[in-house]
């Protein structure tokens, strides 16, 4: 029983519900408990690279810090004792509590998101949406086309760089390349649109009608999915209980 095997649609719904619930909790303890609880669950029921996890976490630590000080400096006028003064704004106990809540909320959102992102294979997610959530195959297969498009776009981008260099654009350093990107956007998009048309025609030529079809990959719904979901919901229940108490 791992989060990797969990049905992606159920995982998606569970994680989204928890995040929504968190948004209505105005105490610092709930997000804190969710943060550590999710880490524990992730440790037990998954096999993710913690190095990757850490890298993904860094930008959100920054956001959490930004949220912390914004809420302190631009906080709403609140009752309670003034703890300290920041840039001429009196910070009360209530302000501190809010600031802690909001920045911990950012962190709790992030661990939940990472629990989903790091254990979910995009392809399985799309198949699962098609099989369990009745997503239109038209959209699902277009998303697959979109995915196949990344390498094509990369090749087209390289070709555009080469043609532009041939025509005398100076592209010596990496910075030159980055700076030149805005000029490539239109030709890149125009090329992509033409490709899209060709791909659509060849899909139709091979008999794609957009109706539901059988697939090799069947994503099941098992008892374990509900067990894992209820673990997450229990965690949230406990965190709310601790927070409100």
């Amino acid at each position, binding site marked *: 029983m791992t989060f990797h095997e969990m049905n992606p649609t159920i995982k998606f719904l569970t994680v989204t519900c928890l995040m929504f619930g968190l948004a209505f909790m105005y105490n610092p303890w709930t997000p804190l408990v969710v943060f550590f609880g999710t880490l524990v669950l992730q440790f037990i029921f998954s096999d993710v690279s913690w190095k990757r996890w850490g890298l993904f976490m860094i930008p959100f630590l920054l956001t959490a810090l930004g949220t912390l000080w914004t809420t302190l400096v631009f906080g709403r006028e609140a009752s309670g004792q003034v703890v300290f003064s920041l840039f001429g704004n009196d910070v009360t106990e209530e302000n501190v509590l809010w600031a802690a809540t909001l920045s911990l909320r950012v962190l709790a959102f992030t661990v939940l998101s990472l629990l989903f992102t790091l254990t979910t294979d995009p392809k399985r997610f799309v198949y699962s949406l098609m099989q369990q959530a009745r997503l239109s195959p*038209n959209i699902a297969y277009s998303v697959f086309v979109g995915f196949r498009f990344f390498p094509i776009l990369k090749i087209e981008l390289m070709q555009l760089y080469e043609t532009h260099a041939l025509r005398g654009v100076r592209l010596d350093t990496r910075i030159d390349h980055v700076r030149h990107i805005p000029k490539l956007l239109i030709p890149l998009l125009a090329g992509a649109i033409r490709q899209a048309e060709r791909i659509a025609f060849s*899909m139709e030529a091979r008999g794609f009608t957009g109706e539901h079809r059988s697939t090799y990959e069947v994503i099941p719904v098992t008892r374990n999915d509900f067990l894992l979901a209820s673990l997450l919901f229990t965690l949230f229940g406990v965190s709310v209980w601790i927070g409100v108490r």
Partner: protein
Amino acid sequence: MLNSWKLKEIVLLSILSVVFAVVYLAFVHVGNLWAGLIGPIAYEWIFGIWFIVSIITAYIIRKPGAAFLSEVLAASIEMMIGNAIGPRIILVGIIQGLGAEAAFALTGYKRYDLWVLMLAGFGAAVTSFAYTYVMGGLSALSPTYVALMFALRATSGMLIAGIGGKILSDLLLRTGALEGYAVTRQRKAHG
């Protein structure tokens, strides 16, 4: 909703979503760098970027659902290629897409003038701000600061997404790649 769509329109929608998902993700990182320094307001003035695919797709395909679907797809693809905002971003996409879609629905999907595109940018700003207000707990901030955030986001939506989207689409139109889509047909019909 998709019954009246041709497959090539759906694939186009998907590919525009892919391209802009990459752009969106790049700007999430730009925003994040700033946000550590100046707080959540860092995102506001560039927020219009995250509405642009709605406007471009609706302008090109001109069918109900184009603005909504493209935004949701872009958000989903953004999540799959590694945005740590995770599943929540799909929700964001749905909400932003609905805001933009509302503007086109109001005109009965008949008009695609600049003001409609700007209205769509504004609509996306309104719905997405409501979401930020709840999820980001903005009620803890002073009302003046919240008003400033909203004003920045609305302006950004109208300028970057509305006007920017129109400029980009018209540049694309000039390349001739959009032959066979509603935007070219309708333009020819009106002379």
